[in-house]
């Protein structure tokens, strides 16, 4: 690639990244408009609970009580 092409790509990349983070910050600021609620409790339990990783499988893990029947 020529220097001009690289330069053009860098400019577009910086614009896209800046736009991306600006939008993310805006969404974060909007979220902060909501009322405070403590969801930072039991952090270890939250981390240890692997269920949130079930997202990657595109399916929730069945609850143990329900899955044992039938």
């Amino acid at each position, binding site marked *: 690639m020529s220097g001009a092409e690289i330069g053009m790509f860098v400019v577009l990349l910086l614009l896209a990244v800046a736009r991306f983070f600006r939008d993310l910050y805006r969404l974060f*600021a909007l979220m902060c*408009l*909501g009322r405070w609620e403590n969801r930072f409790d039991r952090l270890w339990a939250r981390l240890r609970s692997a269920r949130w990783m079930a997202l990657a499988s595109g399916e929730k893990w069945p609850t143990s009580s*329900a899955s044992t029947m039938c």
Partner: protein
Amino acid sequence: MADKFGINHVLIFWGFLVLLLVNAEFVLAGVFPRFSLSFLGSVLYPALLLAADCMSLVVLAAVIIAVSRRAVFRPAYIDPTLDAFIILGLIATLMIAYFGLNACEIRLGERMDEAPWMPVSRLLSQLAAPYTPAQLHVAARVFWCIHALGLLFFLVYLPRGKHLHIITAIPNCFFRSLSFVTTAPRLVFKKGRSFGVSKVFQFTWKDLLDFYACTECGRFQAQCPAHNTGKALNPKQVIRTGKMNLLTNGSWLLAGRFDSLAPAKDDAPTIWPLIGNGEGSVSTDAIWACTTCGACMNACPVYIEHVPKLIGLRRHLVMEKAQFPPELINLFENTEQRFNPWGIAPPERAKWAQGQEIKVLAEDVKVEYLFFVGCSGAFDSRSRKTTQALAKIFTKAGLSWGILGSQEKCCGDPLRRLGNEYVFDQLARENVELFRKHGIRHIITFCPHCLSTLKNDYAQYGGDFQVMHHTQLVAELIRQGRIKLAGGRDEPIVFHDSCYLGRYNGVYQEPRQVLAAATGRAPLEMPRRLDRSFCCGAGGGRMWMDEDVGQATYLERTREAQALKPATICVACPYCMTMFEDGLRDENAVGKVQVKDVAETVLEAMG
């Protein structure tokens, strides 16, 4: 049912993660042309190339399937939105450009060392055989530009569409409620405060994160009893509407603020109302249609909490606006003044126990178990039969038990689900005080709604007693051999899971074990059962409201049960009992099929 469509998602998700690395290499190589991830070594780098090449093909196939699921073989719960087609088209474009670029470069002999690790690209490079090197150079440049622009557009577009969930879903799962959401937050009543939610930023930050995390998969829509019977409520639409409302009102609000990371004030102005019939508003019909059955929260793959949001809206309508369906006036007044939904005089509460030797708790009368009869069990003529059956079972089993008699008050379940938090608060405080006064440690409930309220909602009021449903206690008494069963009638019985017993409190096995012990065989199972059980339509205060839109929920569930041709429909909830009896009446099946509580079946088997 939406059981298997996670497979396509997992392919796209893991493909996305693998391709994230090669796309990072692509971007960095665009800025620093000599950059390559080849420093990863002679094992890792070829492995990465192989994985990326194969996953690109897999992702392309998954995208084609996803498009066909939206355009051709579309299940009812999937909306073919423009947003989805844009993202799927973009992903497909990126994959095609990736293969095109690699194939041209391999053909030109530029990546001969890497070609053995890119089987798909190498195969495709054979298609480029007829073209001259000059043409291939041009084609490679075009594919590079398409890929680069595609990536940059993806970056810009991501925060604007539903695919924002790529970023927000994992934090939303992390901050989720660690157990199934069984209650709504307690309100503190102070002068000058507003109650409930009428503006989007009166939700909590986690509620707002829920809006961002929605994948619009439609799984809960497919399981919502209100949506499935033609009501105005569509849980997916509620979440989407909340997001639209937040983006519009919030952006306007942020424009005039400097401390933009502080919560908004209650009196902050808004452009779009949150409750209403226009764009970006949730209609009152939708708000009142919810049975709070929790099927939506159970089905949501990213743990969005729908029900507390709808209860927040109801709280505003009831406590701030006094706007609620007119048929609820009697319920609210009766419960506030006479402590039961029917407005029957409180001394009548213990009438069912007349003529029986049942202990009524007093200062000098102490028992191990309090039987919290509940309003239905005390006043409803049909449910009284179940109450009396339970009384006989407890006595025969030699249990130390008693009732509160006329001291007992409604647990407040319908009030809390309908948003009348003020009266619920009074009842909860009075009941907890009463339990403390009598030193109660163990409570048995007849009704799953009482169970959930006493166990989960009263915990907010310092209630520290053990609460169990009668099926749990009866199952334990059978295990201990304190209930002797002579055997019941050999007839087909179908069991219906109550939402507040199953989904809300995880009691699935005990009623089935009790029925199996009482009848000698496992009950029949409906297609929608256990945590995917379909609501009878009475939860969330709907028991006390008219159902004049769409098909009756109880009728759909009754028909599902009837399809199994049972002699008896067995329930463990007085609301479900009423609903099934209404359903059988509508179906002209009274006399052909009976509705019984699990306790009645046990008493019959005790001989």
